[in-house]
Structure formats: C-alpha cells, structure tokens
C-alpha cells in the first residue's frame, strides 16, 4: 500500500540536528584556546528590585532528560533574577521554523549556529551586539573568549545568538583501547599508525574472528583521523599558513586512505564499516570483537559500565600517521546557542536573564546548585549530594547544564561526578588537540548561495570516492584523477569563498 509520508523527513532532520554537532555548522574559525575566566565580575545587582516577569523559552527536547517544570535551575533563576522561565520544547528544527513563520515567537530560543545565521538576518532574531551595554557580564565573557565571540558573529558584525561555553570537552572524539587485553598479551598501545597496523595484525592472530580496530561513523570518522595525519579532510584554517586549506588534497590525507585500505583488505576493520550503527559498534566492543576504537570521549565510561569479566577500556594517545605530531580534532567547543526573538516584549528581562547566566554567579549556581540543597563542602571541596551519581542525574533531576539553563558552565561540576578513569581521559585528551578547529568561517547569504550547489557535489564526490578507495573498489592508482575531479567540480571556488570570509573575520577582529 502506498504509505504516503510526505512529512516523514522528520526523522532524518532529527538525525541531522544531531550530526550538526560533529559537522561544519557554519561557525567561525578559531585559533587559540581561551584563557580562564577572570575573577572579578560585575554581578547583576538589581535582583531584589527587578520586576517579576515570565519569559517563554523554546528548547530542544532530549528524552534522556525530558524537561520538568519544577527543575531546580528555573527556581534558582527566579530567586536570583525574579524571572520565571516557561519552557516549551521542540521536536525538530521544523518547530523552530514553524514558530518563526507563525509569528508567535517565544522570547528565547535554543538554536544551532546555523539556524541563528539563517533566520537572524531574515529578521527573526535580535542583534544582541547592540545591547551589550545592558549585559556587562556577557560582554566580559566575550572579551575573555574572543574565539567564542568570533563564532557567534555574523559577517557584518551582528550577533544573532550567544553560544554556550564550558562543556565542549564532551564533544572530543578520542582513541581508546582494551587495556586488559593488551596487558594480557603484553602489548603496548600503538603510538604510530604503523604500530597500529602491527598491533592489529597480532590481535587478529590471537582473535581470528575479531576486527581489532573499529570505528562507527563511516566516512564521517575521517575528520577524526585527519589530525593524526596533519589535516582535516575539509576546508579549514591551516595552522601554519593561516590560510584556508582543503585537506583532502594534502599528501597526508592520501597516506591515511592508504592505511585504511590496507586495514580493510586485511580485515583489521569491520567489513561493514560504512553501514555499522551504534548497536553494532557496542556489540563489537562488548564481545571481544574489537580492541581499539575511536568515539566520543564519554563513551569510554558508558561502555566500561557495561563490560563484563574484567574487560576495561582506557584512553589512548592518538597514533601518528604522517607529519611530526599526532593530534585529535580540536572539538572542545559548544554548538548550542541562545537567540532572542526580535519581537520580544520583555527585552529588558530577557537581557537580564542572559546577563545572569553568563555571570560568574550564574555560572556557579547553574552548574553546582546551592550548598545544602545540591552539594556539601567537604575538606574545602564541593561534593554533590549522594543521590547525584552521574552527570546526567544533574540534568535529569535538576535541569543543570541543559539547553539555555546556563551560559557558561563550570565543567568541574560535571567532572566531579566522573570516575578516575574518565577524569584521566579528559586531562589527557586536552593535550592532543589540533591547533585549529574543523570549522569554516561564517558566510554571507550571497556567498553561501553561490557555493551551495558546488559544495554538495564536492562533498558527495569526495565521500563516495574515498569510500571506494578504502574498500578497494577504486584502485589507489586513480588518486590523481580523483584530485583532478575535485578541482573540476570547483574546489578552488569554495576555498576562495571561505578565504574571503576568513580575511573579513580577521579584519573585524583588528
């Protein structure tokens, strides 16, 4: 029967919104990690006298911490600012679009940078750069984190959203390995891709039906391998030249594809690596079918909590593939932002709310809660009450660190609930971040529509070609033809466009 589901795009759009976390989402390019937040800060003072206002907030919906009206964070916001937050949730980016199209907009939105840059210029969101005088704490935050400020600034200097900050570390994709298996067979974690190959061979001999090395995002994993070969396989600001570079054309990238082809041929990676889903990946990790993998950093402990019989996963430094130093992606930045409706009738209260959540006090309360209520102090150190066992408990029960319930989060709060192994992972991971992010600078509407079609073709051709090189459907001798074709499609035009945007960005900063 013809099941007409014209609208079933939804599922995919949800997927896309998740993927947005790990793909280019139109941010700007950033070169240096920020300094720590300075100590003295102008606190919002007018709490007691502030008028009682209710603000409507539209956030995304997460089933692992579905919003509750009685979340303590909103109570704390009320106590500190006299603002009541009325939270609604969306179910996909259409909800945002529908809300804008209907004209019935809430005061505050949780947005992805791409949405802010799309709908902001259309007039839906307020240009917050014009209201910085009312938000001294936000301004202070932006001054202290210029690279975050850059990512939220549109080409002409407008600021249609404020980005969250503080929890980006969770976006890191890191290597990890089965330290119990390695110890048992007296193996060392590989430090180079050659060693990775040798170690995989040995493990394959020991466990013939295993695929010693596994990853699960298909071609989408290559950006995570890139930094071990000195590149990102897309357009990014090259650390050495400061110019936009297309990493696919770099010799380092070819070396990477050669390695992966070798791994595939010798069955050291799963033969269905392109179509594996999360479930398949979990199964492999849980059943001695794989021993080295790359995934989001939080997955180490999620898997460890499920492993049986002494099996254990541990962080592993990225192995070097090409060049002189192995990195992981620089990804400890956040991809969620907060936008304000251009039609808000509560402008002052909205700005006050934003200023509060970016203030030091707001950061503290919205990350830790209140003494006695959520934590106690032992030996001068804060400790969450025993009912909060893992970081997700804070979100689920209290609303801490959920969308728009913070501006800057104190990662220490979340980390304090991590076990030693996880804390080790985070500390180590920070050491290996690539100097630049895998992001492209923000384009103007005109620039974007000028390259959209080519960019899609380029990406599609790149993805399918690389997949075929790796599974050996196309011989590697065709590599130069592949590079020629990328040029023919118009890679240079895209590089040039991003270069213009990057130059503009650098000019704006000066």
């Amino acid at each position, binding site marked *: 029967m013809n*099941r007409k589901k014209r609208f079933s795009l939804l599922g995919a759009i949800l997927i896309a919104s998740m993927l947005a976390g790990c793909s280019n989402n139109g941010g700007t390019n950033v070169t240096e990690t920020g300094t720590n937040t300075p100590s003295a800060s102008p606190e919002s003072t007018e709490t007691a006298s502030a008028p009682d206002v209710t603000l409507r907030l539209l956030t995304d919906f997460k089933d692992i911490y579905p919003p509750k009206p009685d979340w303590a964070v909103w109570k704390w916001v009320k106590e500190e600012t006299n603002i009541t937050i009325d939270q609604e949730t969306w179910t996909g980016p259409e909800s945002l679009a529908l809300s804008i199209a209907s004209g019935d907009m809430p005061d505050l939105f949780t947005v992805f940078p791409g949405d802010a840059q799309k709908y902001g210029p259309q007039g839906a969101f307020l240009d917050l750069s014009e209201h910085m005088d009312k938000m001294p704490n936000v301004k202070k935050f932006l001054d202290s984190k210029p690279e975050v400020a850059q990512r939220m600034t549109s080409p002409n200097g407008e600021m249609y959203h404020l980005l969250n900050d503080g929890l980006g570390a969770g976006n890191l994709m890191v290597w990890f390995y089965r330290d119990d298996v390695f110890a048992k067979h007296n193996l060392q974690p590989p430090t180079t891709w050659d060693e990775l190959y040798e170690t995989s061979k040995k493990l394959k001999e020991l466990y013939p039906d295993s695929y010693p090395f596994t990853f699960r995002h298909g071609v989408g994993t290559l950006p995570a391998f890139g930094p071990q070969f000195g590149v990102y396989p897309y357009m990014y600001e090259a650390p050495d030249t400061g110019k936009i570079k297309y990493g696919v054309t770099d010799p380092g990238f070819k070396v990477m594809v050669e390695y992966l082809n070798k791994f595939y041929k010798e069955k050291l990676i799963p*033969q269905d690596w392109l179509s594996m889903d999360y479930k398949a990946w979990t199964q492999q990790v849980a059943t001695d079918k794989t021993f080295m993998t790359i995934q989001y950093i939080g997955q180490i402990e999620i898997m460890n909590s499920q492993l049986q019989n002494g099996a254990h996963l541990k962080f592993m430094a990225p192995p070097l593939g090409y060049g002189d130093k192995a990195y992981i992606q620089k990804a400890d930045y956040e991809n969620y932002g907060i936008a304000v409706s251009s039609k808000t009738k509560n402008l002052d209260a909205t700005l006050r709310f934003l200023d509060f959540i970016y203030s030091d006090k707001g950061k503290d309360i919205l990350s830790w809660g209140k003494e006695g209520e959520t934590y106690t102090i032992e030996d001068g150190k804060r400790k969450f009450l025993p009912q909060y066992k893992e970081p997700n408990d804070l979100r689920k029960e209290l609303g801490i660190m959920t969308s728009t319930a913070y501006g800057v989060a104190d990662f220490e709060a979340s980390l304090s609930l991590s076990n030693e192994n996880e804390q080790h992972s985070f500390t180590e991971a920070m050491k290996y971040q690539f100097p630049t992010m895998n992001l492209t600078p923000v384009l103007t509407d005109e620039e974007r529509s000028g390259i959209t079609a080519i960019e899609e073709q380029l990406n599609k051709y790149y993805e399918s070609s690389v997949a075929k090189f790796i599974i050996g459907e196309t011989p590697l001798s065709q590599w130069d033809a592949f590079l020629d074709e990328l040029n023919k499609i118009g890679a240079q035009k895209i590089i040039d466009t991003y270069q213009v945007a990057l130059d503009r960005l650098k000019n704006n900063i000066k």
Partner: protein
Amino acid sequence: MNSPSILKQLKRDRAFILMFAPVLLYFIMFKYVPMFGIVISFMDYNLFKGLGGSEWVGLKYYQQFFDNRDALVIIKNTVLLGLYKLLFGFPAPIILALLLNELRNAVYKRLVQTVSYLPHFLSNVVVASMLLLLLSPSTGWVNRIIEWFGFPAISFLQEAEWFRTIYVLSEIWQQVGWGSILYLAAITTIDPQLYEAARMDGAGRWKQTLHVTLPGIAATIVILLILQIGGMLEVGFEKVFLLYNPATYDTADVIATYVYRVGILQGSFSYATAIDLFMGVIGFLLVYTTNKISRRLGENSLW
C-alpha cells in the same frame, strides 16, 4: 450531447451535491488554501517576513537542480527505484490475496492474514536496524546462510548493485500483507453464483481464479494501479536515508535525499517546494496518461 442542462442536473443530483458539499469544503479549506504555499518555490522564502516580504527569484531553484551534474543520475535512480517498486511491489499483494483465497483451512487462513500485515506497523527506523542486523557480513543470518552454502559473505549494504534489490524486497516485505487486505475485501464482494456457474462449466481452481476472481477485483486493481503510477516517483525518503552510505550513492541517491542534503547546507524551504512541485507535475502527467489509456481500453478510470 443531449444531456439535460446544468440546472436540471443540479436539481436531479441535489442530494448528492449536499452530501459532497462538506467534503468539498474540507478539501478547499485544508488542501487548496495551503496550496498557495507553492509560490515559495519561485521565491527566496523569508520565514520571518512571510510571503509578502520574500523576494521573487523565478526559476532559480529549478535551474539549480538541473545544473547539478548528478541531476540525471539522481533522476534515473529515483525513476528506477520507483519503477522496480511498482513492477514487483504492485502485483505482490494481489498474488498474496489470491493465494490466501485458495487456502482451505479457515483458521490457518486467518492466521496467515493477520501475521502478514504485521511488518506494516514497523517504523522505517526499526526496519532499517533489522536489515542491518540481518545483512551484516560478519554476524547477519543471510550471510551465514550464504557461507553455509560455501560462498563468501557479501557486504550487501556497501555494494551499490545490491541497493535496489534490498530496498524493493524490504518494501514488499513491509507492505504486501497490508496491501492484500483491500483485494481480500474486493474478493468478498464477488457473487458466489459466478463461481458456481464456472464450476458447472467445468472450470478448475486455476480457471476460476482467472475468469471469476481476477475480473471480480479488476476495478480495484486498475484504480490502485493508476494511483500508484502517479505516486511512483515518491520514493520514501526516510528508508533510503537510513540505508544508504557513500559507497552506494551511485544507485541509492534519489531526489529526496539530494534535496535533503542541499537543504541542510542552505536550509531552503523554497528548494524543497520547487522539487515537490516538479515531482507533482510529473506525477500528474503520469496519472493523467494512465487514466486516459485505461479509459481507452474500456477499463475503470478515475474520471
């Protein structure tokens, strides 16, 4: 024509017009009023300012689609996938209904019927994850059977030449039982006297099926065929999206997935609407032509 004047006809049919009026009102209010939205395919739709504040861009989005060097491949993939689905997916429920009709044991018949429509209730997400499970080269049942026969395992979802087969088979699997319900309902309306008469003429089961059952459900078959031909190019987005990957783009990339990818890059409702309209026009031409042919052949027709 010597038909009575419109006024007379209206008078004659007033009861029917009265019946139809609320339905017509529904279609106007909920289908035709929103159809003004089609104009955004000729605009750079500004969500915030609405239609009044959006800029006209003419055929920009149509041109953009055809400028794509892959446009032909994408259209070809869409047409082929739709065509195979029609070719194999359309007869399947008819055959199933006929076979069910021949089952002698009533209890068994009802069991089969009930079970056969179960997969219709699974969402594409679940179907895709089942397929991944079954087709995995290392652990999937299908490959274990292939290996048991001594052949090497196949990475089904990674090989472009398998994509259409997998897609069409899984569609049939999902929809065959559900689709057969209509035909079974149609079979119940056949006058048993016709079977009796056929038996008297010495027709066996095969002949009875051919000369009584099939003609009895022919009207339903023809109408469904016309409708499905019209919807042929509407290849469901979700399932393709869940099952394809870069290695199978060559056969799996269809218009819906392409629009989706471009949409992500530029977030354009205008683009999606333009492609929708284009597909609608083709669908309409298909329906119109098939309907005409069907009428010529003296078969049932839509209008």
